[in-house]
């Protein structure tokens, strides 16, 4: 079955305002070209989920006013420090924050992947993470002989998984190698939108070696070709991150004016769009 192939702009037009969007961390395969397009289309009220954390892309979305809710185990620009727009939004209480811990995000996505309504997880008891998550419950381990409190996490089913990949094929199969949290995101989400460095004509499932690291087209709603689509982040085994640019963002985004200037230059500017 052939995949739906779109331009990056048309791809993000499939993501409605208010959508719950799963995003990978900066060291994985992030769809930055799509995120810029999402900002350009003026997305609003997004609920962004870091799997299990996010960085640059989420900070940009927050700064651009696209985000109502953040659900993640951390927000970080790694060596470039705190995420400035996220930090400002939290201090101003202008977004709803749902702090998590990494394995809870993975486990809750696995519950969605399996079609089970919840999954138990160890840890968390007595933490303020738990105290501030009214959507989580503490139950008892039904197999324990005595009292054994354990956290019950409801299945986390994003409306959209938005990812970038080094390779996809015309059937919508997407190669992600060992970055299987992207596969989990695709399994767990209602829709998965993928940008890829390259879309090939052969079948990635045709060779057991590539098949082993491939998300089947079954889960993929639409794909778009986007060469260099992770920039300014890098992709493992592909190109490296553009660290001078990331450092510039981290500096610019410390002020409202600096962030606006960055947006004008690299997201909205006609030069920026032409470069996508």
């Amino acid at each position, binding site marked *: 079955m052939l995949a739906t192939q779109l331009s990056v702009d048309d791809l993000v037009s499939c993501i409605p305002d208010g959508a719950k969007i799963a995003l990978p*961390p900066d*060291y*994985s395969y992030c769809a930055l070209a799509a995120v810029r397009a999402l900002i350009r289309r003026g997305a609003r009220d997004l609920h962004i989920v870091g*799997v*299990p*954390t996010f960085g640059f892309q989420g900070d940009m979305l927050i700064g651009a006013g696209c985000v109502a809710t953040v659900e*993640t*185990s*951390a*927000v*970080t620009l*790694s*060596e470039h420090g*705190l*995420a400035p727009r*996220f*930090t400002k939004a*939290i*201090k*101003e*209480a202008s977004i709803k924050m749902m*702090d*998590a*811990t*990494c*394995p*809870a995000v*993975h*486990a809750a996505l*696995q519950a969605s992947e399996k079609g089970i309504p919840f999954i138990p*997880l*160890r*840890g*968390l*008891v*007595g*933490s*303020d*993470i*738990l*105290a*501030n998550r009214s959507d989580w419950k503490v139950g008892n*381990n039904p197999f324990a002989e*005595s*009292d*054994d*409190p*354990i956290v019950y996490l409801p299945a986390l089913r994003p409306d959209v998984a938005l990812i970038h990949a080094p390779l996809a094929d015309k059937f919508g199969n997407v190669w992600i190698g*060992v*970055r*299987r*949290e*992207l*596969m*989990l995101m695709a399994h767990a989400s209602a829709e998965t939108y993928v940008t890829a460095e390259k879309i090939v004509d052969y079948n990635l499932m045709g060779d057991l070696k590539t098949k082993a690291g491939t998300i089947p087209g079954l889960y993929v709603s639409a794909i778009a070709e986007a060469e260099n689509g992770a920039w300014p982040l890098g992709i*493992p085994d592909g190109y490296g991150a553009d660290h001078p640019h990331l450092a510039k963002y981290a500096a610019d985004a410390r002020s409202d004016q600096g962030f606006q200037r960055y947006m004008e230059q690299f997201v909205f500017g006609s030069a920026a769009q032409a470069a996508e």
Partner: protein
Amino acid sequence: MTNVLLEEVLIGAIANNLDGLRHVAVGAASPIPGAAALLARSRSNGTMRVSVLGSEDNNFFTDGGKEIFDVAGQGRMDAFFLSGAQIDGKANVNLVAVGDYAQPKARFPGSFGSGYLYFVVPRVILFRLEHTPRTLVEEVDFISAPGFSDDNVYRPGGPYKLITDRCLFDVDKERRCFRLESVHPGHTVEEIHIQTGFKFDLPDGEVPVTPVPDAASLATIRGEVAKEISEIYPAFAARVFGVGKAA
């Protein structure tokens, strides 16, 4: 301390708490714990594994981001490192916010895996290079992960040591508090009292000085460990060991 650096003292002191373990995991952006794990691995005669979390390289996992936590949950991870914007006298760790959680004075990245790993990894070594009353507090503003739990809570893991730029604390699980184990060369017990925001126990008798690594360990640190760590943390390796990244 002659020409032994603080970093080398810390690396040696941490490594002494890892010897004999099978699997030590290190978080991203943790060069000193990373170097300590590599030193312990070098001394293990090929019986210790070291993995680095949150990095695309230097890990041997193939089942996505969840695997390292599954590994810990199964009891296949013996030691891990946690830091905190605040750490308090009950070994609670705060990686989230200072002030009111809903509208904080300071906001940090977040709890990462701490809310889980602190419960399931037997030896969690707390590590904080800024030892001041601002960081080592009486009570944290937000508990990313509690130091101790009630008896009915499943908790094979927990705090094992707290190491700072000034000293090493042991953990008293019975009394649920820290006990000063040793003071790093050049520091004093009085200074520790002044710079620590929480109450802690003292050992019987004189407080020892944290030993500097022996000659063999020092050679390993400055040789193979420095070289390996420079592949993960080039800036750190260049600054501390004067090791450049391989061209």
